[in-house]
């Protein structure tokens, strides 16, 4: 009885959430168990995809046109694993982070719903279903962001909600047009029928516009920094690493699977130029940021810029080995950023918890007091700058290689300046950490909180760099 594991990755978190709501006293245990089960399911799905290839599960047994189908190929399987691992690590961290039972009772159900939304979004291949998962994701993210209850967090959450709703509505309009034009909501079905006609163009613009709003690409990024900076640490880790990335995943799905017919090299620029602007603006703001979490948030804006830059280059390459390699590079950068940013936010959370605030100016002597946290920030920094041995280094190498291959110098300069600025803002933090405060007080270590962050950063800085050789050829046959 061959069980489709991919359904479990949606069903399990939902059940977990329900039990957590029904049984608040044990919500933490339920949460941890579910998170662990989901990450196991994600890994199993990945293994199944590696063995069998793309999997599909029709919900309710109906053919995809009428019913909804969950589809997983190597790209979504990899994202599933990213979601599973980051959420698991953040959950372990969260057990130590939230003190009173009241806070726990509110946190864990929403946390599991968020996980369910992420998994559902990555797996679904029905346009309206994506809309519903986007809404679920949006609402849970907003409620989690507002969990800390301070004025700044509430304001940011509210703005995040409004922007999210706008984005979903515009996306829904795009879906309506597509349904109007092609009569079905199933992604592969539409992909076969689409040709370059006005309704398809308009649908593309609307859907992409909506998603870019939710992914906070440069001009539309104003809501992200306050939202991510004021959310509690595990939440901001997941927000930056996964929620924003889900938007990017969808744009990638749409542009590569759904609208290849429409894409001319120049359309790539539509994503490329804001991407480049995001890299420069995000890095510059991060360099000027006063608080560690604000720095991490702006760095998210910058790193997303790199991903969209990569997409712009991807569409200018004719299908062939170089295009596959670049696609692998972009995916690897996305994964590395996911792990690194989660690690960085968790570490920032520890700093805030330990010294009251996360002002970068008074991080003095942190290396001595919290050695593991400093090491985590250093590893995450390495991955963000894109220094070897991190995965981002390989990604950046492919990005530069294809940009130089195409002879487009603008991107090379942008990536170079971006990396230098990234180095600037990472080492600005590390420098203070190394500046010894006069009295080297005893290093304190809360294993439960420090180890997940360290593992996440280590995965980003070392494992993805060295161990991702097997991933590239498989990604190739996806596009």
């Amino acid at each position, binding site marked *: 009885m061959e069980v489709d594991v991919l359904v479990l990755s949606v069903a399990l978190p939902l059940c977990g959430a329900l039990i957590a709501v029904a049984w608040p006293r044990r919500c933490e245990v339920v949460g941890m168990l579910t998170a662990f089960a989901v990450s196991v399911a994600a890994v199993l799905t990945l293994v199944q995809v590696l063995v069998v290839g793309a999997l599909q599960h029709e919900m309710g047994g109906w053919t995809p046109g009428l019913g909804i189908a969950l589809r997983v190929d190597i790209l979504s399987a990899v994202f599933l694993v990213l979601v599973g691992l980051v959420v698991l690590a953040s959950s372990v961290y969260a057990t130590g982070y939230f003190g009173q039972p009241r806070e726990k009772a509110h946190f864990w159900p929403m946390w599991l719903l968020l996980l369910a939304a992420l998994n559902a979004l990555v797996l679904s291949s029905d346009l*309206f279903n994506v809309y*519903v998962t986007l*809404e679920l994701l*949006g*609402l849970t993210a*907003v*409620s989690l962001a*507002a969990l800390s*209850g*301070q*004025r700044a967090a*509430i*304001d940011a*959450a*509210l703005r995040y*909600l*409004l922007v999210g*709703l*706008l984005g979903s*509505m*515009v996306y*829904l*309009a795009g879906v*309506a047009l597509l*349904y*109007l034009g092609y009569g079905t*909501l199933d992604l592969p079905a539409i992909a076969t029928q689409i040709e370059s006609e006005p309704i398809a163009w308009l649908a593309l613009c609307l859907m992409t516009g909506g998603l870019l709003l939710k992914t906070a690409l440069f001009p539309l990024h104003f809501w992200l920094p306050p939202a991510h900076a004021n959310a509690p640490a595990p939440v901001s880790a997941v927000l930056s690493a996964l929620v924003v990335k889900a938007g990017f995943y969808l744009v990638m799905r749409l542009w590569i699977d759904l609208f290849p017919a429409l894409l001319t090299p120049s359309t790539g620029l539509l994503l490329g130029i804001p991407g480049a602007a995001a890299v420069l603006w995000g890095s510059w703001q991060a360099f000027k940021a006063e608080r560690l979490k604000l720095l991490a948030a702006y760095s998210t804006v910058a790193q997303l810029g790199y991903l969209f830059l990569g997409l712009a280059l991807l569409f200018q390459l004719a299908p062939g080995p170089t295009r596959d390699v670049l696609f692998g590079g972009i995916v690897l950068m996305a994964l590395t950023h996911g792990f690194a940013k989660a690690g960085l936010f968790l570490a920032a959370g520890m700093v805030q918890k330990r010294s009251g605030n996360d002002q970068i100016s008074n991080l003095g002597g942190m290396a001595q007091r919290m050695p593991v946290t400093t090491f985590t920030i250093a590893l995450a920094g390495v991955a963000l700058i894109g220094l070897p041995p991190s995965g981002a280094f390989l990604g950046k190498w492919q990005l530069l290689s294809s940009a130089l291959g195409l002879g487009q110098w603008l991107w090379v300069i942008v990536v170079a300046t971006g990396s230098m600025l990234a180095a600037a803002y990472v080492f600005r933090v590390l420098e203070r950490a190394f500046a010894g405060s006069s009295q080297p007080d005893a290093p304190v270590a809360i294993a439960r909180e420090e180890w997940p962050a360290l593992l996440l950063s280590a995965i980003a800085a070392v494992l993805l760099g060295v161990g991702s050789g097997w991933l590239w050829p498989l990604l190739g046959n996806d596009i």
Partner: protein
Amino acid sequence: MIDTGVLYGLTGVALAAMGFRATLLEPEVIRKLLAINIMGVGIFLLMIATAYTGPDTAADPVLHALVLTGIVVAVSATALGLALERRRRDKDGS
């Protein structure tokens, strides 16, 4: 050549545009939520208009289901928005 479906479709688009514009421009939070609801109604109108295939034949049930789901989602979002707005007012100390 404009039949009922197209008429309502265009109104839906118009409502969506008014809603979108108002969401961006209105400073007041509750008005923003109103505008978003209006924009939602506009898009739902567009969808139902496409589902309408003349007075006698049955309309497309799938779109109706979608709009139903859309309405429920809209109301839950509005409820959350209002709750956030209230909590913000309380924090204001006013």
